[in-house]
């Protein structure tokens, strides 16, 4: 990507009088010698893979460690029974986030967005939207370009790896990308997408990466839910005309700086946070024992 800031990406769209998604697509094609047709085919393939990553869910699947599986189904059944609060869309978002993240832990096929650990967030906000609204697939694909544009700038200015920046870099970035995508799908402007992105990322600053036994399971699966619901809140705020007082680029830089100051124990080493709790340690021992017996 040739843009190094969200401000310059938005400015390029404005001065060329082109939609933001077109600018993101053209920039990527130019940088990497792709044709726009090839790029469109690939984004279409990604969207189909996201849909598939939810459809393949099987409630009886369990991860290798045995700790992950079946939760999305529990949520679906409870929602169906009318036992939960939050409205149809929000409950579906929670269910989809669990579904896709559980599929990832159970070695099914997913789309890393931006990482495998955070793969549930973007499909969680988009899939239920296509049920709720009569949306043209083209609008979803445009939203994916927008999400990717914001995500690339985050990767360039800060980073998107838990080992480098903590969970804020993975779930935080995924959530902010999803907020921008959702804002676009709901008819928001490029500026509103940027505000949704900034508010979403800003709300998850400081989130640590503390996987129990070092696996992409506990608490990663449930953090996908946090990222997805946070994206819905931020998109709603932006669509209502609420703005982020801190510009998106400054929020990204802050995320990078906060990541740098996080101790190593809170950056995907499995040595701090929930991984270091008495129960977390017990699970780690169980998993390691299981490893050695193989």
């Amino acid at each position, binding site marked *: *990507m040739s843009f190094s800031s969200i401000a310059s990406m938005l400015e390029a769209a404005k001065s060329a009088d082109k939609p933001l998604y077109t600018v*993101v*697509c053209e920039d*990527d094609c130019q*940088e*990497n*010698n*792709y044709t726009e047709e*090839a*790029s469109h085919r*690939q*984004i279409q*393939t*990604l969207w189909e*893979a996201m849909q598939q990553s939810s459809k393949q869910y099987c409630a009886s699947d369990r*991860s*290798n*460690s045995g700790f992950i599986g079946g939760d999305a189904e529990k949520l679906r059944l409870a929602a169906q029974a009318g036992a939960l609060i939050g409205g149809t869309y929000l409950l579906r978002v929670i269910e989809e986030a669990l579904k896709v993240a559980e*599929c*990832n*832990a*159970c*070695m*099914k*096929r*997913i*789309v*890393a*967005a*931006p*990482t*495998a*650990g955070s*793969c549930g967030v973007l499909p969680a906000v988009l899939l239920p939207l296509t049920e709720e609204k009569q949306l043209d697939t083209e609008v979803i694909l445009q939203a*994916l*370009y927008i*999400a*990717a*544009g914001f*995500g*690339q700038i985050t*990767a*360039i200015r800060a980073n*998107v*790896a838990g*080992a*480098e920046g903590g969970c804020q870099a993975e779930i935080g970035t995924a959530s902010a990308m999803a907020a921008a995508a959702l804002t676009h799908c709901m008819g928001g402007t490029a500026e509103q997408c940027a505000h949704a992105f900034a508010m979403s990322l800003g709300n998850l600053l400081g989130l640590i990466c503390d996987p129990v*036994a*070092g*696996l*992409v*399971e506990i608490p990663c699966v449930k953090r996908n839910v946090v990222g997805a619901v946070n994206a819905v809140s931020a998109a709603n705020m932006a669509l209502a005309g609420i703005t982020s007082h801190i510009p998106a680029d400054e929020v990204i830089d802050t995320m990078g700086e906060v990541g740098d100051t996080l101790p190593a124990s809170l950056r995907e080493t*499995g040595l701090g946070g929930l991984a270091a709790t008495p129960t977390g340690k017990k699970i780690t021992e169980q*998993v*390691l024992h*299981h*490893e050695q017996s*193989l």
Partner: protein
Amino acid sequence: MRLFDILGPIMVGPSSSHTAGAVRIGLTARKLLGEAPVHADISLHGSFALTGHGHGTDCALIAGLLGMQPDDLRIPNSYALAEQEGLSFTFSTVQIRNAHPNTARLQLTGASGRTLDVVAESIGGGRIRVSSIDGIEANFSGEHNTLIVHNQDTPGHVAAVTSALMQRHVNIATMQLFRNAQGGYAVMILECDQPIPTDIEQWLSHIDGIQKITIFNQEDPS
């Protein structure tokens, strides 16, 4: 930074570094060997050794050796497929000094008896770095169109390879030279902007002292 690095890859979970990256390491090693491997001795270092099984790193490496891509749904069943396809393997744990936390060493034997010893690291997001080939230091990602030439360390080989690329209008993006000793065994790694025409392999193989040529071309877009 490419758009489809941030949105993608499409992959079998759970970890882009421990699973998708491990498949790429296996696949890259298979391409470097230049044929289907029949035996593999695999050593895992660091986090690959500690949390590898929980992340499916072991079956991911085998899947790659069998020629699968990171999105292949057969990855969890690769052990059974290896047996069907006649690939035997061993796994062990190793401590490699100053190595990246996610490092694997693969010692391969191919169907024709050809051998290869490769060390590679999974550096995040499913991306990898090959850090050693046959004991000689290397540094390449497999993300670009790459030409790898193994040759005797004597004058003229670099000129022969670069002029062969020039004649085919292929631009060199990066170029690295490694050798085990002066006049010994050398490896040349050239990352190029355009796909490398396959006829270059036959052309170069006639040159005295050139021992092995490997071509990796990228699919568009990946």
